[in-house]
């Protein structure tokens, strides 16, 4: 069991938990994730390691409540515990001094972008961050991202905060303004990462995306997470999660992500009807 020692609500439906998991905290690196199973009947779901404190032995996770698993996780309060947390999983980000790096985070993906931006900053990069959400109320980690970035740009789809439009629009604007990025990191919904990849492609700026494919074991044993990168099949959980965004078949990823949507909806309806009978 992995006790929750702190819990915060970051936006409606977006929550953050700090979990006691000393062995994982000890090893965690930017870009890695854990697999979480909330209870006996739960799914195994991947969640990015957002932060960790080796001396406290804690890790921080941020999640958007979308399906049953994240709703169940969101119901756990401080003092309660998660049944299973395995990790750290996946290959760490390749952190070194690239020069000027642009970190682009969309929606709850900002949570996954944060440790990477921080690590890049610590290794001497000039970090320009662009974070975006559908609307101002859903924007998370603005302050934290500000602290680890030399410049921070914000966009919202509806214009309630920062630039009106998509993070990729802001990126395009910065490139046109003459920013010379040595590397771009894109983390967020697949459509957003694809838009970022298409923005940087004509300029041949190396771009990395952290892929959020469906996972089951998260350890290379099932292939549910497979993605096509440069015409080859890769397992996001062990070969990734980070890949060269210009090589990723995002169309395939998006289609594969939708395969279980009807089942997820059904499960959520059943769960909600059980919950309200309690």
């Amino acid at each position: 069991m992995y006790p929750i020692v702190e819990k915060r609500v970051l936006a409606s439906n977006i929550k953050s938990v700090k979990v006691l998991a000393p062995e994982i905290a000890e090893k965690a690196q930017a870009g890695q994730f854990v697999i979480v199973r909330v209870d006996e009947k739960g799914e195994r779901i991947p969640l990015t390691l957002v932060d960790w404190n080796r001396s406290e032995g804690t890790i921080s996770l941020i999640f958007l409540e979308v399906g049953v698993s994240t709703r169940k996780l969101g119901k756990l309060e401080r003092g309660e515990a998660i049944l299973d947390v395995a990790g750290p999983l996946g290959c760490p980000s390749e952190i070194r001094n690239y020069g000027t790096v642009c970190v682009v985070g969309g929606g709850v993906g900002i949570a996954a972008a944060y440790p990477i931006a921080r690590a890049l900053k610590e290794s001497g990069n000039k970090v320009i961050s662009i974070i975006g959400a559908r609307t101002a109320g859903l924007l998370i980690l603005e302050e934290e991202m500000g602290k680890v970035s030399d410049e921070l740009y914000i966009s919202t789809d509806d214009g309630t905060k920062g630039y009106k439009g998509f993070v990729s629009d802001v990126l395009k604007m910065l490139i046109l303004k003459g920013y010379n990025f040595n590397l771009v990191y894109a983390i967020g919904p697949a459509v957003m990462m694809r838009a970022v990849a298409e923005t940087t492609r004509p300029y041949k700026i190396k771009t990395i995306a952290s892929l959020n494919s469906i996972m089951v074991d998260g350890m290379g044993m099932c292939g549910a997470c497979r993605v096509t990168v440069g015409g080859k099949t890769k397992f996001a959980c062990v070969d990734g999660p980070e890949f060269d965004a210009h090589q990723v078949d995002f169309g395939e990823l998006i289609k594969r992500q939708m395969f279980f949507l009807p089942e997820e909806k059904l499960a959520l309806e059943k769960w909600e009807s059980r919950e309200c009978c309690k």
Partner: protein
Amino acid sequence: MSAAERKIQKKSVSMPKQNPEVRIRNFNEVALGYNEEQALAEAERCLQCKNAPCIKGCPVEIDIPVFIKLIRERNFEAAIKKIKEKNSLPAICGRVCPQEEQCQKYCTLGKVGDPVSIGRLERFVADWERERGFNIPEIPASTGKAVAVIGSGPAGLTVAADLAKLGHKVVVFEALHLPGGVLMYGIPEFRLPKVIVQAEVDYIRKLGVEIRLNHLIGRTYTIPELLKRGFNAVFIGTGAGLPQFLNVPGENLSGIYSANEFLIRVNLMKAYMFPEYDTPIKVGRRVAVIGAGNVAMDAARSALRLGAEQVYIVYRRSREEMPARKEEIENAEEEGVQFCFLAAPVRFIGDDRGWVKQMECIRMELGPPDESGRRRPMPVKDSGFIVDADTVIIAIGRTPNPIIQCTTEGLAVTQWGTIVTDENGKTNIEGVYAGGDIVTGEATVISAMGAGKRAARAIHEYLTGKA
């Protein structure tokens, strides 16, 4: 009455099974096991051969005639004790071992009729004991030595049990959230009920073995770190879990699963009870399973139970070459699984949502035997044909889990990714041993256990300074 006077019973006592029409609608165990009367009758058939040819067919050398004799004498407690001298997981082996190719293959009775059903008798006494509660053997005083076992499949569990019984401290590190390896995540409930696996695992825990779940070695700790943290030896039993794909166009369409994904969802995550359990599984009306081993049979039979109207096995060789156990092929046929031999998919075709709807196959013919001794399948020119399938399960094999090999500097590995060891499981790194599928490639439960036994012996000698 002496053995010679005893009338030879050519036919073995058949074991009751769930009726096919009923069982394809549930995940309960298919084979129901002998009752006491049936077990006694079957045990009666044994000729008690002096030279015991059956023993040499058993990879862990169970004293088969003696345990059968004890059953005959209704001394079930002594019978199971006899088995457990050599095998810590009898209820499992009694269910999933390919006895027809091992002990039973050498049974003298097999020359004139059915061999003695040794596996069913093993299962009978193992179940008899479990229903009454296990006897825990006395554990000697601690030796002060500690061993880390990586992976809790049959190889790891065997090493753990054997070393714990010798007084060593054993900690098993398992990456998944439940112990048992393939026994938990691969082999379906209807062939091996999970409560039985967990009961056998609990027995091993009672021997003093600690099992730490959610620990992926290579990530949570590496092997050098385990050695530094006070473990005197390490055993690697991480299995062959990396699914192979065909590498043909369209293989990443939705609705195409590796057998491992399909079976992990169904068994480990209990997707057959979705939405009571949260993990979903989606099975269409026409399911094609590619491959014809045990894994393919398990996937095909699971798909039927999940409501598929038609399930067919597509295999590039013919019936004779199918690697699955005979009994399981028969069970699959009884349940209505169909077979399409001498065919291989070359491409999958999807709809506009990216879901598979058809596959193109080509006909194969068999040429001369290849390295495996089986006749090599060769494509027939211009023989392409289209088959409808809205779910495809790829069961063409699994290769070693690679994480340990990538994170243990200096560990000798073959070109197939298996770990190199001597016959006792010793690797090229001092104090590090390995066994089971990670060394042999995909094999069997009992061969993994045999490897575990030999490694346990070698580790014990190493720890006590005899090697």
